[in-house]
């Protein structure tokens, strides 16, 4: 199904939002203004955007270490995100989660996850709830090539298929599990080969092409909503920054040449070129989108910096749900 101009605008907008947010987060981290770890999503924007544009607000996603992009793509609020990254009381998790646990249950974003593969069984559980309530919602698992080697992934993929749950498995194959190349950790080239072992249909998608991801996702979501069970998308993509932090070039485990080759297929550039060709967006219009998002980011940084730190008195809040509904 060829996406409408509105869908293309939406894909573009969400990718730009992710890119700008992540670049700003990287700059803040470099300046020592963000505590903790930072795993940037830059380069992989087409995957989160293509997937989430095919979803409703009620559909759920579970995320990874590299979760900011997923939350932005699901409609995340810049202010609450930036405040959470800075550990402020106004953040999504009141400063208790940070980058690795950022979440918005109202948007169906079931959390970034500090454990590789840890979110996979949880999304499958959300799929069980959707199937049981017969509400037509779908849950989506984002996971990396590295996570496809961990037991939780295999257990949950088999479980989802055995129970015929409305789940879509989206593998972001960026060719490296942290700092180790894929070929050192698995004997197959395409992670999607694993889908067959669970009786799940799977396709390989160009993960730098938001339109291709969107189109494949529309099909997988329709299948899940129709009660035909889970399917598997392997999105071939690449992260432009290091696994952790803001380093780009000069890394020992991968070559600058490889990075430069992937950057020639920057997902935002690709979509902008396509939209220009279609007469949907000229350079000026694209620049306007970038500028608008940048100013939103600046406002979010200001909001986060102006926000109070969490009150130490809240340290022990929310370990448990208290009886009577209070938290």
């Amino acid at each position, binding site marked *: 199904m060829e996406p409408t101009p509105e869908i293309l605008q939406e894909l573009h907008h969400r990718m730009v939002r992710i890119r700008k947010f992540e670049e700003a987060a990287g700059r803040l981290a470099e300046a020592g203004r963000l505590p903790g770890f930072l795993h940037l999503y830059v380069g992989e924007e087409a995957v989160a955007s293509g997937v989430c544009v095919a979803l409703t607000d009620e559909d759920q996603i579970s995320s990874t270490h590299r979760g900011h992009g997923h939350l932005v793509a699901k409609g995340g609020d810049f202010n609450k995100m930036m405040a959470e990254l800075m550990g402020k009381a106004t953040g999504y998790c009141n400063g208790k989660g940070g980058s690795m646990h950022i979440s918005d249950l109202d948007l169906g974003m079931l959390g970034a996850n500090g454990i590789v593969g840890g979110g996979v069984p949880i999304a*499958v559980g*959300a*799929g069980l709830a959707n199937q049981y309530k017969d509400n037509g919602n779908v849950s989506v698992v984002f996971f990396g090539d590295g996570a496809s080697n961990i037991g*939780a992934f295999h257990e949950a993929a088999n479980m989802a298929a055995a129970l015929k749950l409305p789940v879509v498995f989206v593998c972001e194959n960026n060719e490296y599990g942290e700092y180790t190349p894929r070929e050192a950790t698995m004997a197959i080239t395409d992670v999607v080969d694993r889908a067959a072992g669970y009786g799940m249909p799977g396709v390989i998608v160009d993960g730098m092409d938001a339109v291709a991801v969107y189109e494949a996702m529309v099909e997988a979501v329709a299948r899940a909503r129709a009660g035909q069970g889970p399917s598997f998308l392997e999105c071939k993509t690449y992260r432009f920054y290091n696994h952790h932090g803001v380093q780009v070039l000069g890394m020992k485990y991968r070559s600058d040449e490889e990075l430069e080759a992937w950057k020639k297929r920057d997902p935002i550039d690709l979509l902008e070129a396509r939209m220009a060709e279609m007469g949907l967006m000229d350079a000026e219009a694209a620049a306007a989108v970038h500028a608008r998002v940048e100013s939103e980011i600046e406002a979010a940084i200001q909001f986060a910096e102006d926000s109070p730190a969490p009150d130490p008195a809240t340290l022990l809040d*929310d370990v448990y749900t208290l009886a009577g509904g209070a938290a």
Partner: protein
Amino acid sequence: MTATVETATETRELTYLGAFNEALRQVMREDPDVLVAGEDVGKAGGVFGHFTGIAEEFGDRRCFDTPIAEQAIVGLGTGAAVAGLRPVVDLMFMDFVLVAMDQIANQAAKLKYMFGGKATLPLTITTSGGAGLSAAAQHSQSLEALLCHIPGLKVVMPSTPYDVKGLLTACIRDDNPTVFVSNKRMLGVKGPVPEELYEVPIGSAHTVQSGDDITVIAYGRMVPESVAAAKKLAEEGISCDIIDLRTVQPIDLDAITASARRTNRVVVVHEAVRFGGLGAEIASQITEHAFDYLDAPVGRVAAPFSPVPFSPHLESHYVPDKHRIADGIRETLGRPAPGS
């Protein structure tokens, strides 16, 4: 707190297992969001029979078999709980908790806190622990200390059919991840159980018998063993105050310290290995809250620091019994064993 409450309905004798099954049925009848998933829990009714007839009564959408995949079983429950259901997931043996530990400890227990309170996790994990069936080292463990160490979890280990029904009901209705541990050797034990649905509050201990000379703190199968030991000791003129913790996370510190301050001597009894067990925590709490009242160090009767052995000849030396409990109590009291 007393063992029984005034009830509007009849109280009959039920087994520990029967009380579990009845509580589950009654909770499932009142709440359509409760469903059960686990290995062999469907038509087979669970390997010990906890779930007998549940799939028949409620259908296979509400009680179904899963793959043998403990991480995915707990994750299934966690995700379903976050998404609005009130699932019960079964881990056949408590030893298998270890297979699922990431989903239990890093995910279910922490999601609420990590998300700034915005998640609610009404998840119940049921499992069966305890030694004494020659089930050897991977099917006999008492691993409650590991679970009690994880903020976010609640853990119950009932010793009577009455408490089984009341605590299982409380666990399923609780909006937090709870772990309900059946004791495998107690499944056929009978006791009075009201027909109506009721809760035993999580975190509330029960005084099994009152006494003046020493406080004995136990839970699970060590409760009846301690009662048997106390009966023998009564003949020697020793009067035991026996506290059944019932819940091991959170522990009922008020009940423990009140008794310790009165008797001035305490022994903690558990099936789990002694090193790093609940006894260590309880002893430490007592020294913090009742140190000036103590006439002796807090004693511990527990399993030695080894895996659970297979042979009945070895296993009977491994699990504490009434004789070893009586010895431990005498030691803390500074009394010689009879005939010595």
